[in-house]
């Protein structure tokens, strides 16, 4: 017995109230003078005694209601050994039905449903059954019950999904269900037992709870071919697809390309057993904006879902960019940056490099973002112009070049310098490296390799509450700061963009770093238009502050007030907002394409990981007892006592008024 909230025990004092009221009532009967009692019968005391007994019974029920109510607040629970119930031979059969995408292959699903129903039919009448559907997440379809007819109906209502199932993760998730089981459990997996679904560590298949495991394998190793991946260039329209064979025999397949719903090309390919083939297509003629590209393999096979693959190609429009050099009389300090931008063809940047002397002649609104290589090149007037430009929606990358020590504060942002002299020497031995990177930021995703760069000098700026530090040096000083300014974006880089203060431009990570910054300053224009099944898609990641997301079936999938959606359908998701439309392709999880089941020996080992509860009882292992809450039973007790109290109270009143016989 355990009291989870013993402080509520003080509530038991409440039973003093009915006791006091009953005592008060008993001490103050309806007493009145009468002329003579000579005609009152001596038999009356019997009725009075009966009334007093009823009164005591009524008092007992009232106290019982209060005590039960207090106990309900205390949330009592009892420790119970699940194995104790085994004495009666009862068991809980947890039936886990695999609803992963591969279960749709051939007649696997029908076979799985029949197997599950046969399994339910074979369960002894005294045993309980619980049904769980395993997809991307596992869903408890029914709680433990003896009502097998309902569970059979629920099995028939299940459908296959589009997700991959990892049996290791599934076993971990099932541990929670098994831990609360009140009976010894038998875990039944009704699955195609894909070898691809087994975890890397076989031990992950072992449940922590002592249960018996039975794997009911359905389906056979059927040949399957899939379109594994699809690559395309939004600039050139070039397209290549990878086709994978999961078959023991060679086969010829035809790949058909649909561009915006029209078939534009076909390629024939011969696939050797267990091999991959790359098929290149003639460059596509893309229309401006978003293009839907779909590759369909024919003829189809047992698993139709992986016979097609989609790609969204967003033909880029040129993005004019202004790069302002801080070098007097030249642009040497921005050479690495401009070269990096020019090789980023995916972003289609049109770079205009100028010296600081030409800054006054530029109209910033002609450019999508501006890079200033040395903040010292900006005077007060230009700083005001740049501020207004950013506030109206422009982008600005402001670097603190070699002349920064001349500044009292950073132009545009107003950041103060922590120390005017942050020379750190010029020798590599004194260089610092990057301490932390906010890789969850879209501009820096996957940029861990930037840590190899060494920073000989940097300007230590004092961060403010309005700043978001994206990269911090190992000294703790910020290297890259983002600050929102009006509708635009502003990035402050605390070192030089050339090699004078750091060796980042010589590192391979420099180009991806520049690409990430440019992509971010452009508002996510270079977003890869393919997302993984089961991931989430946010409007903000597409540079949209508001809008709507439509699923492949054309239905709106964004909740009211929501900003992101779970991608749980295969096809094109359409994002509409801010005057533009973006497409995101979501494809079949390739891990489900290999239909080969795990070998028999592996399945035998898997089942061998299960431990019968009886064996545990007899062994040395100490079985953990389960805390079973009694709140439900207490509520039933309160209800019953309240009903009886009402009835008894009413009867008592009838007796008092002499209505009862």
């Amino acid at each position, binding site marked *: 017995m355990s009291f989870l909230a013993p402080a509520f025990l003080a509530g038991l004092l409440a039973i003093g109230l009915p006791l006091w009221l009953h005592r008060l009532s008993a001490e103050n*009967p*309806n*007493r*009145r*003078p*009468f*002329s*003579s*009692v*000579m*005609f*009152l*019968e*001596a038999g*009356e*005391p019997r*009725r*009075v005694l009966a*009334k007093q007994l009823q009164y005591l019974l009524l008092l007992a029920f009232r106290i019982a209601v209060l005590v039960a109510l207090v106990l309900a607040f205390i949330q009592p629970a009892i420790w119970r050994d699940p194995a104790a119930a085994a004495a009666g031979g009862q068991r809980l059969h947890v039936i886990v039905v695999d609803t992963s995408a591969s279960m749709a292959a051939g007649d696997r699903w029908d076979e799985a449903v029949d197997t599950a129903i046969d399994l339910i039919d074979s369960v002894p009448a005294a045993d309980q059954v619980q049904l769980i559907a395993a997809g991307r997440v596992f869903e408890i379809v029914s709680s433990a019950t003896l009502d097998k007819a309902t569970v059979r109906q629920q099995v028939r209502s299940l459908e296959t999904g589009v997700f991959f199932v990892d049996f290791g993760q599934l076993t971990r998730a099932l541990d929670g269900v098994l831990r609360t089981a009140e009976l010894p459990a038998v875990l039944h997996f009704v699955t195609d037992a894909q070898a691809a679904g087994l975890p890397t560590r076989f031990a992950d298949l072992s449940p922590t709870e002592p249960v018996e495991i039975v794997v009911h394998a359905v389906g056979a190793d059927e040949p399957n071919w899939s379109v594994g991946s699809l690559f395309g260039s939004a600039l050139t329209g070039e397209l290549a697809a990878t086709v994978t064979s999961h078959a023991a025999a060679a086969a010829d397949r035809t790949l058909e390309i649909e561009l915006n719903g029209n078939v534009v090309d076909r390629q024939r390919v011969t696939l050797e057993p267990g091999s991959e083939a790359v098929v290149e297509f003639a460059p596509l003629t893309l229309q401006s904006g978003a293009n839907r590209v779909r590759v369909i393999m024919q003829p189809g096979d047992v698993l139709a879902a992986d016979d097609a693959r989609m790609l969204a190609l967003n033909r880029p429009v040129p993005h004019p960019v202004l790069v302002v050099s801080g070098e007097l009389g030249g642009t040497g300090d921005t050479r690495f940056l401009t070269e990096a931008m020019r090789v980023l063809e995916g972003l289609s940047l049109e770079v205009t490099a100028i010296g600081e002397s030409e800054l006054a002649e530029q109209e910033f609104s002609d450019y999508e973002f501006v890079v200033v290589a040395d903040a010292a090149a900006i005077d007060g007037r230009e700083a005001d112009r740049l501020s207004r430009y950013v506030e109206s929606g422009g982008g600005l990358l402001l670097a603190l070049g070699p002349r920064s020590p001349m500044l009292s504060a950073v132009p545009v942002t107003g950041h103060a310098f922590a120390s005017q002299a942050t020379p750190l020497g010029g020798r590599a031995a004194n260089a610092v490296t990057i301490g932390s990177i906010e890789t969850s930021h879209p501009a820096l995703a996957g940029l861990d390799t930037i840590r190899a760069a060494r920073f000989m000098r940097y300007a230590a700026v004092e961060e403010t509450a309005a700043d978001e530090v994206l990269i911090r040096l190992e000294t703790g000083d910020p290297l890259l700061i983002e600050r929102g300014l009006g509708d635009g974006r502003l990035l402050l880089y605390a070192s030089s963009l050339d090699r004078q203060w750091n060796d980042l431009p010589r590192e391979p990570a420099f180009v991806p770093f520049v690409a990430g910054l440019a992509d971010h300053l452009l508002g996510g224009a270079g977003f890869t238009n393919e997302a993984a099944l089961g991931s989430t898609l946010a409007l903000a990641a597409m540079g949209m502050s508001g809008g709507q997301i439509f699923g492949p079936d054309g239905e709106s999938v964004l909740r009211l007030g929501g900003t992101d959606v779970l991608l749980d359908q295969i096809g094109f998701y359409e994002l509409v907002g801010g005057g533009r439309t973006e497409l995101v392709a979501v494809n079949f999880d390739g891990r489900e394409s290999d239909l080969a089941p795990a070998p028999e020996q592996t399945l035998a080992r898997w089942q061998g990981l299960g431990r019968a509860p009886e064996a545990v009882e007899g062994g040395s292992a100490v079985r953990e007892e389960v805390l079973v809450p009694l709140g439900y039973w207490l509520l039933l007790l309160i209800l019953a006592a309240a009903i009886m109290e009402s009835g008894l109270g009413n009867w008592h009143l009838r*007796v*008092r*008024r*002499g*209505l009862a016989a």
Partner: protein
Amino acid sequence: MASTGVAHPRHLLEPHVLAGLSNLELVARAVVNGFLTGLHRSPFFGFSQEFREYKAYAEGDDPRFIDWNVYARTDRTYIKRFLGETNTRLVILLDASASMGFGSGAVTKLQYAKFLAATLAYLATRQHDAVGLIVFDEDIVDHKKPSSRPGHLHGVLHAIDRAEPGTGTDLARPIERFRQFEKGRGLVAVISDFYCEPEALLAGVRPLAYQGHDVVLFQLLDPEELKPELRESALLEDMESGAAIEVSPSFMRARYREKIDAHISDLKRQATGAGADHVLVDITHPLDEALRSYLLFRHRRG
């Protein structure tokens, strides 16, 4: 002139109206006058000065009623007698036990009994009857011997007025006292609730009848005693003994009423057997019913 503010004589007989009068003599006058006004010269109960006969003066007769004209003519003293005059004696036995203090309305049984006793005394005095009084509970509380002397009525009324609910009831005591002091023939009015065994009561009354007394029993009961209405069970406490019994409404509605009715019937039957009259009086009813019963009784015996 409008008669605004003047109560109808019948209205004056209502107990709750009488309860507002502090003077018992005033109560008696109001009742008798109101009652007589409503009689309209009945041949049985006339109180007019209607001549009936001459009677030779005897010692003890009131000399005020000697007809001096006859004396002048005949040289003998005669007294004029009028219709309604009987020249008898009335002794009132007033029960002042604790149970008489019960009352669910404007007046208690004792108050009503006092009104009735005072009225009877006043009425008897107007008929030139001698009036006596015994107030009792378990014992004799007060005793006024019968007399028709002027001023005796005031003494009787004061004795009635002093009566308060006492302890228990013992009817044998006042009857015994009456038998000790009243040897002559007369009227005996017993005013009580008669919570006693009828046989025991009649054992005392029967010798009085044998002595030639005419006995009338006024049994005063409250409606709550005749037809009690309980809403819920109650602990009823005897006003005399203090004993308490818890009763249910159903019992009081059925069984109790049967028993009290049987008691009244038995009392009436036993009284008739003993040559006495029994008058059941509901204390919420006007006094004229009781007075009418008394006059009928007096006329029959007179």
